[in-house]
């Protein structure tokens, strides 16, 4: 009879004792990605593969008169073509509602010809309704699709006491009144949405570009007319998601239909212009905020009216007073509906917009009160963590020696002005308790760590191996991470920064169970009970007796059959709630309106860093995306016809190499909680706010319209010309 073992709870242990985690770990899939060997959904091929494409109505609303696919079916190589709307159907600029037909063909060229041969006549509505102003015009048609909608406004919600707020505003020593316009932003996943479906003996294997591989079989089973158990979904690599890839939309439904009707593998991924019109976006905002402060620098009052522009969706905007403390506040928030595709979750949904509004207001009040905007922030933030982080950012940017703190600077003889600005971020980083991980140790010493997570580019695959390697004293390369497959043990959808907080504790728990099971076997060999061993450098030895030791292969050799354990989420290993601060140093050319971001700094906490290198990549990525949002990104529809004018990357601009100055990503090691959580949302929140505030500090132009393009900068400097 084996003795009863006293087992310990898993813990991350002291950071100083870690050999692999909290260090720079090269990505395990790096070599595949840099050589083109990594296969994405777009890259999957199968014998008999059909290439399929949707035909999307390019305007906002209309009524179908006719759709004729006979011409497409006559094209050699076209195998399948169908109208997906009947005559008389209304079409809307909203996912499935905008799809008129689809074609599938043997080659891309035949597909081009087939798509071109589909004839449709759609009577367009006379008004496009694509802007805030257009939606609120007196003669605007009601495009909102809520039941019984009487106007293009929905979801009005008022919070706070208006009378008290107005009184506090009137009593405040300084006031500001700012109006904001934030355009809709796109995710711009470089791999478009879609999948390759391959029918097989079991039912079907789907190669989907998905942030939620475990949940995908449900949707695809419906699309394919199969049982969930007959569908396996695989996402080994994906070209970006940023919140827009949770479950297949119309592209999955139509692909499933084609597979059912042709019995052939189907490759259906959105075209780039479709990606811009039906794959989701970040909510635009129109807002007016009046706020007041006392002369000693306390925020006393804030009155806000916020319109969310989520197209046919409700839109998202995080609650004010975003992070800061305010004496009295009254907010009025509503959705204003345009006839465009609904918003989807996008990295920190609603938060960058709220940050931009709030941080601009805070900044403007600081200058109005004659205060240093850094000190003004620290005074009004509810947690000293941000104060510490802001000081670190300020030092890194040279703020203490910067010549003008309480008033904007002046351009030099060339018209160039330099400024520094700040902003903070927060995120909940919760976890879900259903995550599981299976660790299998084989008698030959090989190890697998298996869980149905997916790697969006975050480095998840790497820590799935690294956590196990740390626990068992192995190298990362000794552990095979097996992820991205719906057949694996359950894991969470990657959204809201929950992935690491949910997965890592389950992986750690599985590794811990494997270690204790091996230690139970070691007792007969080395003598110590469970918990009495040290696992390091590919060996195990008895605590305090390094002579009693075995190499890893010898340990594994004690197994008669593979050791197979499954760990589950452990609350003790996770804690959410994170903080960050960012700052920017910019140069503004006051003659041309061009903004050059010379340097950005981010200090970010998240508990134990699993992989410092991947963490810096995520922080830098947040700053780059915020910089891009700040300076360049702007979706534009033609107001008369509703056509999307920014449907590819030559018209919808994102930041490239030449926009990127010095970026400094600082992991906040002063924060030493013994737990961890995800953090991807937080660093994308404050960047554009810091840049706007830096522009003001440079030259006194308060940028409240995004992006901070030359025309908007010149308008802020000189007024409308």
């Amino acid at each position: 009879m084996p003795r009863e073992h006293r087992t310990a709870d898993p813990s991350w242990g002291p950071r100083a004792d870690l050999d692999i985690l909290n260090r720079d770990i090269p990505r395990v899939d790096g070599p595949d990605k840099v050589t083109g060997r990594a296969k994405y959904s777009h890259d999957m091929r199968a014998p008999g593969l059909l290439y399929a494409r949707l035909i999307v109505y390019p305007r906002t609303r209309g009524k179908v008169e006719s759709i004729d696919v006979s011409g497409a079916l006559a094209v050699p190589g076209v195998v399948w073509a169908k109208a997906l709307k009947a005559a008389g159907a209304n079409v809307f600029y909203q996912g499935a509602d905008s799809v008129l037909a689809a074609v599938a063909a043997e080659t891309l060229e035949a597909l081009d010809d087939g798509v071109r041969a589909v004839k449709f006549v759609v009577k367009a509505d006379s008004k496009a309704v694509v802007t805030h102003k257009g939606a609120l015009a007196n003669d605007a048609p009601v495009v909102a699709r809520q039941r019984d909608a009487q106007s293009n406004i929905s979801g009005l919600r008022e919070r706070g006491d208006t009378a008290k707020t107005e009184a506090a505003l009137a009593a405040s020593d300084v006031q500001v009144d700012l109006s904001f316009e934030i355009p809709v932003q796109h995710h711009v996943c470089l791999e478009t949405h879609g999948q390759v479906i391959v029918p097989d003996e079991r039912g079907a294997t789907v190669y989907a570009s998905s942030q939620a591989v475990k949940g995908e079989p449900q949707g695809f089973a419906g699309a394919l007319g199969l049982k969930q158990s007959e569908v396996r979904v695989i996402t080994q690599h994906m070209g970006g998601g940023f919140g827009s890839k949770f479950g297949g939309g119309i592209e999955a439904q139509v692909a499933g239909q084609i597979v059912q009707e042709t019995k052939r593998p189907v490759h259906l991924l959105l075209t780039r212009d479709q990606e811009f019109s039906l794959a989701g976006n970040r909510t635009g905002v129109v807002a007016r905020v009046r706020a007041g402060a006392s002369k000693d620098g306390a925020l006393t009052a804030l009155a806000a009216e916020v319109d969310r522009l989520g197209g046919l969706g409700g839109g998202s905007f995080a609650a004010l007073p975003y992070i800061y403390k305010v004496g009295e506040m009254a907010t009025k928030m509503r959705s204003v509906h345009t006839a465009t595709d609904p918003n989807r979750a996008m990295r920190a949904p609603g938060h960058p917009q709220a940050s931009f509004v709030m941080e601009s207001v805070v900044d403007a009040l600081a200058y109005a009160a004659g205060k240093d905007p850094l000190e003004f922030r620290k005074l009004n933030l509810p947690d000293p963590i941000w104060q510490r982080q802001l000081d670190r950012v300020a030092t890194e940017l040279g703020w203490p020696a910067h010549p003008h703190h309480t008033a904007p600077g002046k351009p030099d003889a060339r018209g160039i002005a330099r400024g520094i600005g700040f902003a903070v971020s927060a995120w909940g980083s919760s976890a879900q308790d259903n995550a599981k991980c299976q660790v299998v140790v084989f008698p030959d010493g090989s190890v697998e760590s298996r869980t149905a997570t997916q790697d969006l580019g975050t480095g998840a695959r790497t820590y799935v191996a690294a956590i196990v390697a740390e626990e068992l004293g192995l190298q990362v390369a000794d552990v095979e991470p097996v992820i991205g497959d719906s057949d694996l043990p359950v894991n969470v959808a990657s959204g809201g920064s929950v992935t690491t907080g949910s997965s890592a504790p389950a992986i750690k728990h599985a590794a811990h169970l494997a270690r204790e099971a091996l230690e139970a076997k070691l007792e007969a060999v080395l003598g110590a009970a469970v918990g009495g061993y040290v696992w390091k450098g590919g060996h195990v030895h008895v605590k305090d007796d390094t002579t009693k030791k075995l190499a890893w292969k010898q340990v594994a050799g004690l197994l008669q059959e593979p050791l197979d354990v499954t760990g589950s989420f452990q609350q003790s290993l996770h804690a959410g709630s994170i903080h960050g601060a960012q700052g920017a140093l910019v140069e503004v050319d006051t003659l041309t309106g061009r903004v050059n971001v010379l340097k950005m700094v981010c200090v970010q906490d998240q508990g134990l860093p699993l992989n410092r290198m991947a963490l810096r990549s995520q922080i830098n990525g947040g700053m780059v995306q915020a910089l891009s949002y700040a300076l360049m990104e702007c979706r534009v529809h033609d107001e008369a016809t509703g056509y999307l004018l920014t449907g590819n990357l030559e018209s919808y601009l994102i930041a490239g190499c030449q926009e990127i100055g010095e970026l400094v990503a600082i992991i906040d090691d002063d924060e030493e909680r013994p737990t961890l959580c995800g953090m991807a949302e937080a660093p994308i929140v404050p960047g554009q706010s810091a840049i706007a505030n830096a522009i003001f500090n440079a030259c006194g132009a308060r940028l409240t319209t995004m992006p901070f393009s030359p025309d908007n900068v010149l308008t802020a400097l000189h007024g409308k010309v």
Partner: protein
Amino acid sequence: MTHSDPKPEALSRRALLKGAGGVAAVGGLAATAEARSVTTLEPAPVPTLRGEVEVTLSINGATQTLKVEPRTTLLDALRTRLEPALTGTKLVCDSGSCGACTVLLDGKLAYACMNLAIDQVGRQVTTVEGLGTPEAQSDVQRAFCAEDAAMCGFCTPGFIVACHAALERKPNGTLDELKHEISGNLCRCGTYPHIFNALQRVQAERQVASQQGSKKGAK
């Protein structure tokens, strides 16, 4: 060479390149000019050279015979007409804006989406797969791994090719010059600073190697 007799119809700019990608918009815009209220794909008499021809291309040093249409882009040929497909070269914008399909044609940087496959007869086509393998990576590929310059990885093959070419053209280039050299490529995850680090790492390694080489030569 087998020919299925491609029939040249009236040529236009679109016929020269692919011909179809933006057709929905073309049809729609044409209709808009005529009558605001009706959209149709009908008025698209886009002339196209159709029919497959067999071509022999040199891809990554190997001779490959494949069937393409005259309008088939090099990108589509690599990704869908080779067996096995060479899918390292990525399709993102299909309009010469993003660099995800960057390849080398006779050693010069090019977008595979903006070049026709048939035009490559007699040229050396080099894709990311031709620069190294996971087992035998190039110095640029190793540097990308060491500097964590790939996140989702979808832009990475294009950047790898562009970085090779940048370091050929500007072996001692300043960071600003190198940024300019690779500014035809876009990344969405935000790996740029890591790519810059990788470029500078390779520059430094090559300088050390060439110094050691010249010392050896002096002996």
